[in-house]
């Protein structure tokens, strides 16, 4: 049983942003959020050797989701207003993209937001559909927990996204509010190393108990175990020459 092979881990020492400056009672501007995604150069991921492809000069900008402007459209305005009434100042940033509403929330406010979403009569999000982790390698708070709430009464969906850094990967657990988050948070812990505070038994769920590392982080190689064929080793798929 072994974890990833030695591989340079990108520097993740950028300071964490504080949530304190976010104004209460209104939606934050999202200015405290760092860009998501990584700036990338070239096309084939070839480093340290001559690039004959001619694509070596390409630079791809990191992706930043844009702040939504009111009116957000549909039920989104009503939902954001009701949530702000129930949990003032809890929303750091609102993104409306492809007809889906995403609320960026500081982790200190996640329990307030989830409680309001579940208990408020105007919100009534009975079901926590999905919890998943995403690793935005390169940004300061790269580990994101993404929650999909579903209101069966009003037939609405809302996505809530919370970020944490690798050095301080703590996010409050929603298991007390939504018991169905149990295994999904264990999976996000297993795969991304997000520590859900208050979870009744945060252990690995898919990987073996003694596994090193968190396999779905972006700096964890695919095929982290060396595979040997008759004396010759092959590189893991992400180290082979390929389009990026």
């Amino acid at each position, binding site marked *: 049983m072994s974890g990833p092979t030695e591989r340079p881990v990108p520097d993740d020492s950028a300071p964490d942003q504080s949530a304190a400056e976010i104004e209460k009672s209104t939606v934050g501007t999202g200015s405290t959020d760092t860009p998501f995604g990584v700036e990338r150069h070239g096309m084939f991921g070839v480093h340290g050797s001559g690039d004959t492809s001619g694509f070596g000069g390409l630079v791809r900008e990191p992706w930043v989701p844009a702040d939504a402007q009111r009116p957000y459209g549909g039920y989104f305005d009503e939902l954001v207003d009701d949530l702000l009434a129930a949990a003032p100042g809890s929303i750091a940033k609102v993104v409306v993209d492809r007809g889906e509403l995403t609320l960026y929330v500081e982790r200190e406010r996640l329990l307030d937001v989830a409680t309001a979403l579940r208990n408020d009569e105007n919100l009534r999000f009975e079901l926590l559909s999905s919890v998943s982790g995403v690793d935005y390698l390169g940004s300061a708070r790269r580990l994101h927990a993404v929650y999909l709430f579903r209101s069966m009464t009003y037939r609405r*969906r809302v996505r809530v996204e919370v970020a944490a850094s690798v050095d301080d990967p703590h996010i409050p657990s929603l298991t007390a509010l939504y018991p169905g988050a149990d295994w999904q948070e264990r999976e996000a812990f297993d795969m991304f190393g997000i520590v859900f505070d208050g979870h009744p038994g945060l252990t690995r769920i*898919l990987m073996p108990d003694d596994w090193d590392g968190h396999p779905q982080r972006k700096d964890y190689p695919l095929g982290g175990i060396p595979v040997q064929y008759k004396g010759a080793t092959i590189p893991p798929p992400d180290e082979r020459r390929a389009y990026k």
Partner: protein
Amino acid sequence: MTDGTGGYAPSRPTTEGRVYNLTGGDWDEMLAQVQGGDPIHEERLVVNMGPQHPSTHGVLRLVVEIEGETVTDLRTIIGYLHTGIEKNAEFRTWTQAVTFLTRADYLAPLFNEAAYCLAVEKLLGVTVPARAQLIRLILMEVNRVSSHWVALATGGMEMGALTAMTNGLRARERCLDVLELITGLRMNHAYIRPGGIAQDFPDGAVEKIREWIVEIRKEIQGLRNLVQHQPIWVNRLKDVGWLGVEGCLALGVTGPMLRAAGLPWDLRKTDPYLGYEAFDFEVPTQDAGDCYARFLVRLDEMYESTKIVEQAIERLEPGPVWVDDPKIAWPAKLTVGPDGLGNSLEHVQKIMGSSMEALIHHFKLVTEGFRVPAGQVYTAVESPRGELGAHVVSDGGTRPYRVHLREPSFINLQSTAALSIGGMISDVIASVGSIDPVMGGVDR
């Protein structure tokens, strides 16, 4: 054996009392090893079931704490079939990722493909043509029927109803015959692709589906006649493994389990996709919330699926099956040649003989793939087991940045303890069978 216990039941003191390990061997000899009394009435008995066990519905491990035959605690241990599908998908193009994701829930592969492809299409901002939508819908409903047949067949087998198993698997073969004729494969089809479907219906597909509807309705009625009022079947399932609507919602349970508890929640009705709103079908519900109600819901759902397929084949009209965007659509038509399925001869002649640009285009699209604008979406379809969601994140590149499947098997399986604790150990089997977890989907 060198532990001095004759190979049986070594024991060791722990902070919670003496623990006896029983792995194989003879029960009388194990009891003889136990000093000072009767472990069944004085101590907790922890029984391990699985992961290799014929009644656990796959590589599922249950650690059951029992007192007599009553379950006092139960833990579900998973992960034995984890294959890193989500991680692997990040290292393939958007189209290639389908080949991995279809292997997650291997009894409902077309639903995995559809959830993912609808997400990618939402990211791209494209809608597939009407014919491709209808074909997807038809195949998903055939797949739903085949998946429910396996649920009923294996669930019956685990309780000892072997005729239910043989009949169920026979009926499932009929569904797989249809899928095989159309997609070329019985399972793991990779037939639904971002932007369309791999190929159009072959000759004779519609006739085959018409025959299938007649046959499968006979099979449904046959199973109804066989087991619906069969006393042993009813006694094993009725009032067993109860979970009400509140419990389902708290645990995130969706699909037939939720509908058997009384909430008519079906994404085909509440968030219609692929044009489900235009079809006339019912959402079967029961209100008992037990294993028998789940059995009835699945049986009724199969019939409703045949109704949908019946209407859908009447609405099929000739047309394209790929989006009208050469930057996304697969460049070649596929045909069956003397050496199997491949690019059509006409296309090969064009790219090899007459158009260098077409060759470059084909090469780029197949090897590099298309780019998907950055962003994230979540799309959900009603799989045979509940809400199957795909949370897909793109960073603007030719590969998915992150694909997460919200697997209903995974989330529904959390309810195992709630269904089982306080019941008899034999009811654990019926309860797990009624959840119908597919371990490929649970572990991904």
